[in-house]
């Protein structure tokens, strides 16, 4: 056996030997082979790659964001103008902004689907409850990144979003001090810019590190759809990374097409005292609620959704992972998702309404 192995090595092409030596040298120093730990085969399905794709989308956002920060000016008197300059004068500015916009949309959709997949497959169950909590925190950070990004373009939609933010800050009483335009001595827009480009990406990186460490610590959750007593075949994690890389290429390709053919619009320069826009679709579900109960509805609806998400592992505590055997939870989640989709569609066809300063 060892002789045959030796023969194979002798007959190996020179290029292959050099490549192996290179990887061996790299592994000796970086421990790359440690990434070849086995993971269950089902982890290579698309549904189980949504979390990885969300992380890739985040990296793309950071990359394109760095480009945009070279040209964006967070001073409220010139912010709108600087975005216009990015769109009309900066080399590849319109494309990069479009990529950033569609990447943000993709990140919202991907993290939402990832959360849904983890919920349906019961992957949050013991001992992975803490990782579910960190996942919900990541979803919250992503939503906040989306909101602050919406404000930065400083058009009419942005101003109205910020006005809502200030109103919600007032509802928080003394805890809402940070949302007061009078806090800090520099404009609120500039402070939100710092949050968008530094604070939130830092927090996201920190939490995702813990999230990934816990995935490694507990391993991939078993699939609830697998039948039969035989153990599930495994594959090295490096294979999963390679498949993720392939999906990343496709994601970049799709985002490029969208950025080229359907770049985001940019509204008129903001004008104070009017309320004529609706929020972008990921935030549109709160619009009818705001119609019915006022600005406070945004705060309470958002808190309710995140509280419900945090409570999931403490409510659905049985070891059963199959969705068929967790029907009440599935129905409850289905009702919530259907309600959100219905609210988005309802808001989309409703006329614009004023919510701030209208008594």
């Amino acid at each position: 056996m060892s002789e045959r192995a030796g023969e194979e090595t002798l007959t190996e092409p020179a290029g292959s030997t050099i490549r192996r030596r290179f990887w061996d040298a790299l592994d000796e120093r970086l421990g790359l082979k440690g990434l070849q730990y086995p993971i269950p085969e089902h982890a290579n399905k698309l549904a189980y790659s949504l979390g990885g794709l969300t992380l890739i989308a985040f990296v793309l956002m950071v990359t394109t964001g760095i480009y945009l920060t070279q040209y964006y000016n967070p001073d409220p008197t010139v912010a709108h103008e600087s975005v216009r300059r990015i769109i009309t004068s900066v080399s590849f500015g319109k494309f990069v902004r479009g990529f950033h916009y569609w990447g943000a949309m993709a990140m919202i959709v991907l993290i939402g689907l990832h959360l849904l997949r983890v919920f349906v497959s019961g992957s949050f169950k013991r001992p992975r409850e803490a990782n579910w909590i960190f996942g919900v925190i990541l979803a919250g950070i992503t939503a906040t990144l989306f909101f602050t990004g919406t404000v930065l373009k400083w058009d009419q939609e942005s101003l109205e979003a910020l006005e809502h933010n200030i109103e919600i800050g007032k509802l928080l009483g003394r805890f809402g001090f940070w949302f007061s335009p009078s806090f800090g001595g520099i404009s609120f827009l500039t402070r939100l810019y710092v949050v968008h480009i530094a604070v939130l990406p830092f927090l996201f990186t920190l939490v995702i590190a813990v999230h990934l460490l816990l995935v490694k610590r507990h391993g991939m959750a078993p699939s609830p759809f697998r039948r039969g007593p035989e153990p599930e075949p495994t594959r090295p994690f490096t294979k999963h990374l390679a498949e993720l890389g392939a999906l990343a290429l496709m994601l970049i390709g799709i985002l490029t097409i969208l950025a080229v053919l359907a770049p985001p619009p940019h509204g008129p320069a903001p004008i104070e005292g009017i309320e004529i826009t609706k929020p972008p679709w990921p935030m549109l579900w709160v619009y009818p609620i705001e119609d019915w109960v006022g600005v406070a509805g945004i705060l309470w609806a958002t808190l309710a959704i995140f509280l419900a998400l945090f409570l999931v592992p403490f409510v659905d505590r049985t070891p059963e992972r199959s969705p068929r055997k967790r029907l009440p939870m599935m129905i409850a989640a289905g009702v919530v998702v259907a309600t959100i989709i219905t609210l988005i569609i309802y808001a989309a066809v409703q006329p614009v309404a004023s919510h701030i300063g209208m008594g």
Partner: protein
Amino acid sequence: MTRRHHPLGRRVALAVMVAVGSLAGLASPAMAHEGEESVPAITDVQEAIAILAEHPGSFPVAEVAEHAMDKVGDALESNDTRGVLLDLVQQAKDALDGGRNDDALTLLERSIGACPGAPVIEPENAPRTPPPLSSPCPSVAHLQALDRTPVGGAEEPVLLAVSAVLILAGLALARKSR
């Protein structure tokens, strides 16, 4: 003003919007007709501004003007005209009649206390009542909205080719690693 050709898709989108609006109206006939005068004028004006300001170029100018004109007409007939300078709304109506949508937009914004052209520093101090006419806003400096128009130029085909290569490479790699 140069006449623009608008793709069929935009006309269809406008038709769908009107159809959905009509259906919404049919669903609540009381709101659709009897209650029009009870809708506050400020709401009608804001909707007219939204129609004019948010998507110029998306639809034919005449259709946008017609849609906005309906709202302006409702504002002028409203029983609740608090917070609205009707004289400016009437001037906006005349501007729409004359095909001057940009002027109409400015007049409508001013009619409800907004000050087009003034830079926004901190939104908390936004005016909520119409300013006296003796203190006019700065000359109109605000920009129109930019719609979704493709990137264009030489970079468009290059980027599309790159995206096609990336997608094909991704598909090939995914197939190979299975």
